[in-house]
């Protein structure tokens, strides 16, 4: 399922943050960058939301974009019923490498977005407790691959945040 961000008047285009002089942080779902949602790669479409919002920011205090990864942003994580523990995951090394590669591609898209406005990037894995280790490892591998490509020369990966649902 791919969200159509531009249907019915493109409501987000009404968002203008030019008057917000105290704005420091923008938090967005990682799925709004590069189409992680459903693993459909439509970077030209999916990056426009964030590009538009960033282009309107005038606050001198602004410095941070938090990309929030949910369970559904990871191929190897099955969104569980909220009342039960996450299911057992069976991912091969090759599948995990493919997933890390996908996230690396997403970081490349973020680099393009970064050209609109300077910001520090914060990666936030907001997943089930049992999935934190996996999701963080995949993101770390994606970051390592992106660093090897020089993607992170363009902006500073500020910090990581982990929020665990359902207990560790």
């Amino acid at each position: 399922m791919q969200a159509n961000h531009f249907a019915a008047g493109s409501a987000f285009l009404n968002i203008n943050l030019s008057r917000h002089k105290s704005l420091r942080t923008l938090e967005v779902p990682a799925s709004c960058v590069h189409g992680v949602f459903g693993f459909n790669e439509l970077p030209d479409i999916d990056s426009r939301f964030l590009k538009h919002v960033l282009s309107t920011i005038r606050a001198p205090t602004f410095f941070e974009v938090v990309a929030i990864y949910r369970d559904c942003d990871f191929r190897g994580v099955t969104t569980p019923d909220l009342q039960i523990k996450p299911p057992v995951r069976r991912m091969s090394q090759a599948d995990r490498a493919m997933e890390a590669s996908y996230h690396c591609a997403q970081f490349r898209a973020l680099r393009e977005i970064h050209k609109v406005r300077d910001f520090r990037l914060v990666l936030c894995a907001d997943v089930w407790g049992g999935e934190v280790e996996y999701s963080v490892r995949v993101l770390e591998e994606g970051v390592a691959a992106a660093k090897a490509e020089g993607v992170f020369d363009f902006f500073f990966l500020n910090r990581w945040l982990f929020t665990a649902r359902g207990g560790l």
Partner: protein
Amino acid sequence: MTSTSSVDLLKDVVHLFGGIRFRYLDLFNVAKEWLWIDACAETLETLRLYPTSEQTPPQKVCKLTTLQLGPPS
């Protein structure tokens, strides 16, 4: 703020309290979200945005974000 569709409610709140001064807004599936954003132009420090309502909704068990009242002006 989740699944709020009434613009009139916002106008009533703004009128009742003489403005709104949130420092943190998390706007999921909120109709006319730009009204909320504009209303907090003086105080907003952190904004969580969703491109469409088709994004994964916030989980209640997560308690990641709440609306926080800013200091009185």
